[in-house]
């Protein structure tokens, strides 16, 4: 993953938020549950105490004090806390450790003897004091330990649940993140490739028809549309280039016919020759444009043959040694034998010629040019044309590979501006990688072919 800062990662933020929300929910749920059950337990306890008290009070009313004293002794055996005191506070029956309190509900510390501090804290006594008709008090109590135990159980459970929630939520968040990451991977890759200029890339569509699939479908539709429009634009430009050739050819024929009627030295002849030369330059540009389009359509791959790139490179380099010599530049040749490629001989010739001519034309006098052919470590035939001229600044390297139509030849150093674009088209056709590099000083053009 590229974003190490979690704040920059959408899915990590989602995972974090999800964990927080889950923890909050678990806490709320627990608080509710705890409050409910604790209330219920206390209610139950009071109910029990109240029932006991009422039964004993009814007994006292009906059968007299001695019967109830016996009953209290009996109930004490079964557990629980009971006591009865007369109106002066004297113990009539039951447990003397119960502190006498006025009528109503009371909570007291558990009257233990010699128990640990911790145990003392865990127990308590809930007392209902009832005043009977003769002014005596009946005390019925229960140990609140069960409520305390419920508390303890809940806090233990709460801890575990929080831990489990934290784990599950984190896991879920990570999982969700991974899913989002995976689902957006194709989108990311495709948009990146398209951004880099490959308009033919499409997203591999999922089959779920969910939101992601929708976005993918929309993106593909959008790319189709863009591609279609660009294709149309190209078609139109090519159609124009193609259609203009016929009237331009006729114009050329008329100019030539007119030229044939004048003698060489006449001013008219000079004008007509210049007009024909201009027209030829434009026709050459159109021809080069159409040629690039033809190369780009890939149909030439159909008749690729095994060609000796060594022999071809050697031949072209040798042809240009005297040309370079005449323009005061030198060509050094360093070519490995028996380097073959699968390709179109004419187009490979054009690629070599364009690169060598480019080196001759765009370097200052007395520059050195190297034409080298070798095999890379992985066996790919690699052609290098190097010079020690001015080179091309990094920011312009990509631009010089794009077709730039220069119909007005006075604006540039001559040429249609399509030379390197043609080289790029030929390299692409052959699946070769074209690179412009800094030869320090100068330009190094390398073409790395696929091994034949």
């Amino acid at each position, binding site marked *: 993953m590229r974003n190490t800062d979690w704040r920059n990662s959408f899915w990590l933020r989602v995972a974090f938020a999800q964990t927080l929300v889950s923890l909050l929910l678990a806490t709320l749920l627990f608080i509710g549950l705890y409050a409910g059950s604790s209330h219920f337990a206390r209610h139950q306890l009071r109910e029990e105490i109240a029932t006991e008290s009422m039964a004993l009070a009814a007994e006292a009313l009906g059968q007299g004090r001695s019967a109830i004293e016996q009953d209290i002794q009996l109930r004490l055996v079964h557990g629980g806390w009971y006591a009865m005191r007369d109106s002066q506070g004297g113990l009539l029956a039951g447990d003397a450790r119960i502190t006498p309190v006025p009528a109503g509900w009371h909570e007291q510390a558990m009257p233990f003897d010699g128990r640990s501090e911790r145990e003392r804290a865990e127990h308590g006594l809930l007392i209902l004091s009832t005043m009977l008709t003769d002014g005596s008090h009946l005390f019925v109590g229960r140990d609140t330990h069960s409520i305390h135990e419920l508390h303890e159980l809940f806090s233990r459970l709460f801890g575990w649940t929080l831990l489990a929630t934290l784990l599950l939520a984190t896991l879920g968040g990570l999982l969700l993140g991974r899913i989002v990451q995976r689902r957006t991977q194709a989108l990311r890759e495709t948009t990146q490739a398209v951004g880099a200029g490959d308009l033919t890339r499409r997203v591999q569509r999922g089959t779920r028809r969910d939101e992601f699939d929708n976005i993918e479908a929309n993106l593909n539709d959008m790319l189709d549309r863009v591609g279609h429009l660009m294709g149309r634009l190209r078609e139109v430009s090519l159609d124009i280039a*193609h259609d203009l*050739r*016929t009237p*331009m*050819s*006729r114009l*050329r*024929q*008329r100019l*030539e*016919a007119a030229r*044939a009627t004048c003698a*060489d030295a006449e001013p008219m002849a000079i004008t007509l*020759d210049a007009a*024909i030369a201009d027209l030829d330059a434009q*026709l*050459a540009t159109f*021809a080069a444009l*159409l*040629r690039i389009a*033809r190369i780009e359509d890939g*149909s*030439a791959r159909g*008749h690729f043959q095994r060609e000796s790139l060594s022999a071809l490179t050697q031949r072209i380099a*040798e*042809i*240009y040694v*005297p*040309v370079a010599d*005449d*323009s005061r530049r030198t060509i050094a040749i360093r070519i490995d034998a028996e380097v073959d490629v699968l390709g*179109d*001989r*004419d*187009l490979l*010739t*054009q690629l070599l*010629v364009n690169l060598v*001519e480019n080196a*001759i*034309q765009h370097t200052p006098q007395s520059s050195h040019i190297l034409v080298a052919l070798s095999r890379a470590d992985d066996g790919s035939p690699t052609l290098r044309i190097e010079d020690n001229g001015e080179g091309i600044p990094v920011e312009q390297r990509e631009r010089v590979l794009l077709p730039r139509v220069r119909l007005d030849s006075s604006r540039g150093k*001559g*040429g249609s501006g399509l*030379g390197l674009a043609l080289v790029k088209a030929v390299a692409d056709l052959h699946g070769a990688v074209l690179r412009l590099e800094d030869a320090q000083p100068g330009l190094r053009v390398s073409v790395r072919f696929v091994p034949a």
Partner: protein
Amino acid sequence: MRILIIEDDVTTADWVARSLRERGHVVDVATDGREGLYRATSGEHDIAIVDRMLPAMDGLAVVRALRAASNALPVLMLTALAETQERVEGLNAGADDYLAKPFAFSELEARVLALARRPPLARVETVLRAGDLEMDLVRRTVHRAGKEVLLQAREFQLLEYLLRNVDRVVTRTMLLEHVWEFHFDPKTSVVETHISRLRAKIDRGHSTEMIHTLRGMGYSLRAQH
């Protein structure tokens, strides 16, 4: 010469026909493939100039039909684009040479003349001669006035092509295609450079120049002045 033009573009056909007639040739024009094929089989012509794109029957089919009928009439094919594929298709169909539109008339004329007078294919020469220049194709040697001239392989090839077309005009494009196998227009003066080097070796020290530059047309190797 009697020349047949099979071309549906009337403007081009007229221009080529008129220009050829001015040079003293007899020219017939057919504007579709079927009519063209019919006239080509009459046996009256020395060469046919055939456009590749034709109504009724395209140029390739015309040439194929001619060759199928064992008709050896030299054919120069005209096309809109000079891509490898088109060129190879044209030559495979049986055309003898190939010219992309638009072209200069001098280019067309040079190619027509080179084709029409091409010696029969069966004759295999081992020595080419022009005046006091002699080329031995087996030994790969060249002598001028009895003295050996040392040529590099590429120079030998260039001279051989000029010798085979002695006294005829060869255009820059013809040299590029046949000597260097460049089926496109290079930006530098490749042809001029090599011609001037060859000229230095062949003509230097001799009173008569053999390699001539014809401005706006091309080059010519001439036996006599």
